[in-house]
């Protein structure tokens, strides 16, 4: 794959060169190839006398780190015309200016692949949530429909030198950066520029060096996409649109966005993410469309290294490690989760983890508050286990390789740009000073002081007296002492060549004050002696000062352990399947056998293998069920837990293209909390903000697993529909009266239109534009995807049944369905099931007739009925919600239990795998302390696939572990603060909480940081 891309790249480069005539790049390349005959040529006129210089320099006697791991001692670097001629033992040309670099180190200047240097500032989108809707892009010109796809932007066209920023980057060691406009989901191309203070014509060294992407729509004011899953769908659809656009379909006309997308496909593709899970999301899109993205990482990837390795991506790692949190106020620290504290401790281990995992990576300064802290940040990574060589590679060779710009930057090989640093020592040492940063052969002084290292012993004659003087300290801050019986401290300052000395001749005595010129081995000047008489002085250098090696061998503190998932309740090691025998419990089979007393259940390889009395345990772990109740795991048919960055796309009335599967958040603590309530599977639904919402995902609550492993493999796919007030935006305020539909009349037409479009689309030829939305609708029409529909009032339920009948498909499940009891007969006839709340009502107009007898009536009318949560709190009491049907309508206990176990399994088409206790089914089980329908019952053990994911006893241990670990980290952060390390204010750790409704009762309110409605 990579070979092909190189090939393509070369083609496009040559095209570029041919097309652009006298571009700077062309000039440089030609100069290199053809010698100096044409190098003086340029289109820019000169005011005055031309002053053409070749800039040939030879840096001799240096320690040259030519590339990471290749160190040349006493070596010479020769440059000319902004390029490296040789590094090592090459001859010193006669016309070279020779610079003595004895004791100095020379490194390639750093390269940063993730910069916005010199690009116009990005305006944040205003307007906000609930402003009037904007359905298409407002970008002027022949561009695409979505404002967040800006493939047409070329950073090279908008780039303009910004000397202030350039200087700060140069001072931090950088010589070249890949810069792009960091705005939108597709951001166009990046340009590789040097940081020289020259015309852009000279500093642009690769006009189109990369393309850039993210999941963040940036300044786009358009509504779509409003969610992470919408961003993903938009990217996928744009790939398809661009493929189709290659044939320049007449109906589309000119679309410069898609054109640019296609034109830049061969460039390195860089994807910025906000989170470790985003890495997998981006990589998955790449896999689908044959692209290997380079990932600009978020900084928490270390939490899931095996998954990072599997992406086979190269990474650009940020070094903006979190500051310690100010935890002095315990009542504020209370809101900082252990996961945030641990992240503070572990974030600096990320580069080392990447090195250990052998993943190619480079560093970026992006995100650092203060660019001056760049090398300090690298040091932090080194202290946390990164090798120095790898660190150097990550700022030189690695970025060059990743960008395929090794011909230009990254090492000191002949022919590359003369971008290099001259330093006082190994570049990442704390005391090392970067003296000079040469870029394209131009010298930029960073720190003069110390370049001239005057430290050493001198014989100083003042008038007729001679003294032995030692100058020590650091090269940039030398200190003087007079060596005699009592060593006396004086001072020495050097500014360029001008030197000032002062010292007493006895302790507390009057000072001798001298000034003069420091000229290499001999210094001369005049001054005043202790009596105030003018004297002349002279100093002769004797020997250089060798500082004692003061680097303390730091014993790195062992940081805390990683948890899976990265949460206080996470595992230190992923749990393993175990054979189990639950002995002597009351077993609620949900099968014909009903409730069996004093019964054993044997679990092997994650499956239920036997139910009976006095079963042999064999090697199985025995769990005593005496006095306890064993049921099938609870299945929440309507849940919104474990979803990242938006549960509703909802910006268009039909968004069948978006998928919850793309945005599963395995770190959500609600997975664990719901396990504590006996839940083993959750059907994660898109919200209800639009008529045809997104695709659903059934997961098993395998706490600690990643998104793919959470998915209930092989389960039928579903999609969420919605009707009524949310869909017609009844309660969204006065700004939301534009989107069609605003009435239940319109909802019917949206559905009819969508399915009609899908059928028309199906008839199109093979060269049609593949449309993800319509493809999904076709799956519904072909019974390959099944519908759960949020619905309340009888008229709309009836309408959807009729619409589905017309298009010859079946609504699988009506969810919420609080007036289902009014049309249970029609639902039965249609073949739909119901997933309802036990007793919610009065929170909006369309639920004024909701009754708690709903589940009972529907069940008695012959429907498959589930009771579900739509709420992360209620989900952990679904057994109690089911029990309400005993009170309201006299349902039997066994039937009531099925409302949250077997019936949802049936509705989700997985009743052959879970939902009851039967040999051959998955061992998704709950051991309860009491009758599971009782309010006094607690789930003691919750088992998924034969793994005990929640155990009330283990839970107590975890609480203790959280407390201990929090305390350790709090003490560590307090110590940091005391040391003077800058700290960040304690911010509450937000949790994303979603419901599908906007104005719902029965919920938690208030205290959650990330509460999101809809």
């Amino acid at each position, binding site marked *: 794959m990579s070979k092909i891309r190189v090939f393509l790249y070369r083609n496009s480069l040559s095209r570029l060169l041919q097309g652009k005539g006298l571009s700077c790049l062309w000039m440089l390349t030609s100069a290199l190839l053809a010698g100096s005959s044409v190098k003086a040529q340029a289109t820019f006129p000169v005011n005055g006398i031309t002053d053409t210089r070749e800039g040939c320099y030879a840096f001799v006697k240096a320690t040259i780190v030519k590339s990471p791991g290749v160190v040349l001692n006493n070596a010479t670097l020769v440059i000319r015309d902004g390029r490296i001629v040789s590094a090592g033992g090459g001859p010193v040309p006669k016309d070279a200016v020779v610079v003595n670099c004895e004791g100095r180190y020379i490194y390639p200047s750093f390269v940063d692949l993730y910069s916005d240097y010199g690009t116009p500032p990005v305006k944040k989108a205003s307007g906000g949530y609930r402003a009037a809707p904007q359905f298409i892009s407002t970008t002027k010109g022949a561009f695409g429909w979505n404002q967040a796809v800006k493939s047409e932007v070329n950073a090279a066209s908008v780039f303009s030198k910004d000397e202030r920023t350039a200087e700060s980057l140069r001072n931090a060691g950088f010589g070249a950066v890949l810069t792009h406009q960091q705005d939108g989901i597709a951001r166009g191309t990046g340009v590789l520029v040097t940081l020289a203070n020259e015309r852009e014509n000279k500093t642009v060294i690769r006009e189109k060096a990369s393309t850039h992407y993210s999941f*963040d729509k940036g300044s786009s004011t358009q509504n779509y996409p409003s969610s992470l899953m919408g961003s993903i769908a938009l990217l996928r659809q744009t790939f398809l649109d661009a493929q189709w656009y290659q044939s320049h379909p007449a109906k589309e006309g000119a679309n410069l966005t898609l054109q640019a997308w296609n034109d830049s496909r061969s460039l390195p593709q860089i994807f910025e993410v*906000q989170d470790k899970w985003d890495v997998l999301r981006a990589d998955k899109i790449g896999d689908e469309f044959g692209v290997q993205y380079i990932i600009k990482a978020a900084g928490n990837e270390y939490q899931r290294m095996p998954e990072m390795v599997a992406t086979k991506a190269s990474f650009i790692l940020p070094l903006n490690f979190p500051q310690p949190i100010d935890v002095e106020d315990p*009542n*504020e620290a*209370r*809101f900082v*989760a*252990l*996961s945030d504290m641990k992240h503070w401790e572990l974030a600096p281990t990320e580069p080392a983890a990447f090195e250990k995992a052998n993943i190619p990576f480079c560093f970026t300064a992006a995100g650092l508050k203060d660019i001056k802290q760049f090398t300090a940040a690298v040091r932090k990574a080194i202290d946390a286990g990164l090798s120095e060589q790898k660190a150097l590679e990550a700022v030189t060779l690695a970025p060059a390789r990743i960008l395929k710009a090794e011909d230009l930057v990254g090492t000191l090989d002949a022919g590359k740009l003369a971008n290099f640093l001259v330093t006082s020592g190994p570049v990442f040492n704390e005391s090392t000073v970067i003296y000079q940063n040469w870029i394209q052969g131009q010298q930029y002084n960073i720190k003069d002081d110390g370049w001239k290292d005057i430290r050493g012993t001198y014989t100083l004659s003042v008038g007729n007296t001679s003294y032995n003087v030692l100058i020590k300290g650091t090269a940039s801050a030398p200190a003087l002492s007079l060596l005699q019986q009592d060593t006396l401290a004086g001072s020495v300052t050097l500014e360029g060549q001008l030197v000032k000395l002062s010292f007493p001749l006895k302790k507390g005595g009057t000072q001798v004050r001298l000034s003069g010129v420091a000229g290499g081995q001999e210094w001369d000047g005049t001054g005043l002696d202790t009596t105030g008489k003018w004297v002349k002085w002279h100093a002769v250098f004797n020997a250089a000062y060798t500082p004692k090696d003061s680097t303390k061998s730091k014993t790195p503190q062992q940081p805390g352990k990683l948890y899976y998932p990265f949460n*206080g309740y996470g595992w230190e090691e992923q749990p393993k399947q175990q054979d189990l025998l639950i002995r002597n419990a009351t077993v609620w089979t949900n099968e014909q056998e009903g409730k069996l007393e004093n019964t054993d259940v044997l679990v092997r390889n994650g499956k239920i293998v036997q139910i009976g009395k006095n079963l042999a345990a064999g090697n199985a772990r025995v769990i005593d069920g005496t006095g306890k109740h064993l049921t099938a795991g609870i299945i929440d048919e309507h849940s919104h837990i474990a979803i990242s960055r938006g549960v509703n796309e909802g910006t268009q009335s039909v968004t069948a293209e978006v998928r919850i599967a793309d945005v599963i958040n395995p770190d959500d603590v*609600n997975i*664990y*909390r719901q396990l*504590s309530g006996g839940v083993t599977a959750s059907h994660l639904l898109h919200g209800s903000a639009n008529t045809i919402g997104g695709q659903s995902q059934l997961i098993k609550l395998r706490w600690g697993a990643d998104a793919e492993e959470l998915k209930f493999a092989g389960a039928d796919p579903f999609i969420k529909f919605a009707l009524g*007030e949310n869909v017609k935006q*009844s309660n969204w305020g006065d700004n939301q009266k534009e989107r069609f539909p605003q009435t239940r009349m319109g909802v019917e037409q949206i559905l009819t239109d969508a399915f009609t479009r899908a059928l028309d689309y199906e008839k199109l030829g093979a060269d049609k534009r593949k449309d993800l939305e319509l493809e999904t609708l076709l799956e519904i029409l072909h019974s390959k995807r099944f519908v759960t529909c949020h619905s309340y009032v009888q008229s709309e339920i009836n309408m959807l049944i009729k619409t589905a009948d017309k298009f010859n498909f079946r609504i699988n499940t009506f969810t919420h369905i609080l007036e289902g*009891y009014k049309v*249970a*007969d029609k639902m039965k006839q249609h073949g739909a099931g119901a997933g309802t709340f036990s*007793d919610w009502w*009065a*929170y*909006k*107009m369309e639920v*004024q007739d909701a*009754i708690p*007898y709903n589940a009972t009536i529907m069940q*008695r*009318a012959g429907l498959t009925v589930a009771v579900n949560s739509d709420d*992360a*709190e*209620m989900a952990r*009491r679904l057994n*109690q919600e089911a*029990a309400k049907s*005993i*009170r*309201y309508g006299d349902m039997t*206990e066994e039937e009531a239990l099925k409302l949250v176990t077997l019936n949802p399994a049936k509705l989700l088409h997985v009743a052959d795998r879970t939902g009851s206790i039967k040999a051959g089914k998955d061992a998704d089980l709950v051991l309860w302390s009491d009758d599971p*329908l*009782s*309010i*006094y019952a*607690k789930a003691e053990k919750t088992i998924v696939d034969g793994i005990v994911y929640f155990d009330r006893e283990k839970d107590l241990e975890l*609480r203790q572990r*959280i407390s201990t670990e929090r305390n350790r980290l709090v003490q560590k952060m307090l110590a940091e603060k005391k040391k003077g390390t800058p700290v960040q*204010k*304690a*911010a*509450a*750790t*937000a949790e994303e909480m979603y419901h599908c409704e906007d*104005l719902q*009762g*029965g919920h*938690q309110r*208030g*205290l*959650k*940081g990330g509460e999101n409605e809809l």
Partner: protein
Amino acid sequence: MKRLISTYIAVLSCMAAAAQETIYPAKVQETPVFLTNATIHIGNGQVVEKGSLAFANGKITAIGNSIQAPAGARVLDLQGKHIYPGIIAPATSLGLTEIEAVRATNDNEEVGEINPSVRALVAYNTDSKVLATIRSAGILLAQVTPEGGLISGSSSVVQLDAWNWEDAAYKADGAIHLYLPSLQPPAANPGRPTPPKDRTAEFLEKTGEVRAFFREAKAYLQENKHAATNLKFEAVRRLFSREQKLFIHADLVKEMLVAVDFAREFGFDVVIVGGADAWLIPDLLKQHQIAVVLVQPHSLPIMQDDDVDQPYKTPAQLQKAGVLFCLGNEGFWQQRNLTYEAGTASTYGLSKEEALSAITLNTARILGIDKTTGSLETGKDANITISAGDLLDMRSSTVTQAFIQGREVSLDNKQKQLYERYKYKYGLK
């Protein structure tokens, strides 16, 4: 048999007029009632097994194992059912709102920051369709509470079976409500460069505003004659004389500490409403004799590190520390689940009778109505809920009869009527 007949009548009546308008408030008690053969949960922790209870003229006259039915009494053999004090719902917008999302039906939140003179009672709608569903869950009294702003006005305790708000008033304007702004540190906002706004300054400014208001009110009230009458100051007169309580809505430790400080500076009788983090400072609350209305144990823990069952067990932690507390539930229609909040509190550490006290006698104490209700004791109002079984457990909490001040109230409601209507449609028995 009797029950069957009454069900039949209910069916007939709902077929005739499937609406609530035929659910009437009960008439004043005329004949004494004698409830017998029941498990009597007094509300103060005691249980009388196989006991009897008599009430006349709206008051409980006798209770025990060996009491006799008063002459001419209506005798109800409860056949082992459970008798409870009428359940009391504190801090609710019941009767102030009908359909949450329909603005026209919302009378629970006034505009403005300092509105102590605003009275919830006058907006309390005795004809709300929600009330009957709450009553039929055994909840017979409620503290109807205004929201919004900082000082939102006064709440009143009402009984849930009345023709109008005057009839409903059980204790008028017993408390004034102060809603403290949140001091929760703002959430970190990953991916956004701007640091989140600090709420402390706003908190201090707003609480300062309230403090200044009370200081000026205190000074104003020292002088009887004023050129201009200030209704807001006048409205808090009874707070200073402790005839009225100050209910401070606060959840986090520092918020609660500010509430304690209000009690200290102004000598108010302070109750904390919310109290999500009260488990962190039980001793302090006990020391300052601050009572707590714990709102909704059925909540998620505040932080991901918190014990997963923290809100469930907070009541038991307060009980153990000796803090006076009661249980509430959010919202209005949700009040019918209040008994289950108590059930959960019992699962996680309270005894069943302690859990019952947390929705009866403790509540009455906190609302200042324990002289007349909250427990089944002689001389108190006959506010009584009868349940087929354990009222705290949904399996068995079917309420069969209820009495408010001795009047047997209707347990019919709109939802039961709709149930009957559709059983009729589908021919279900």
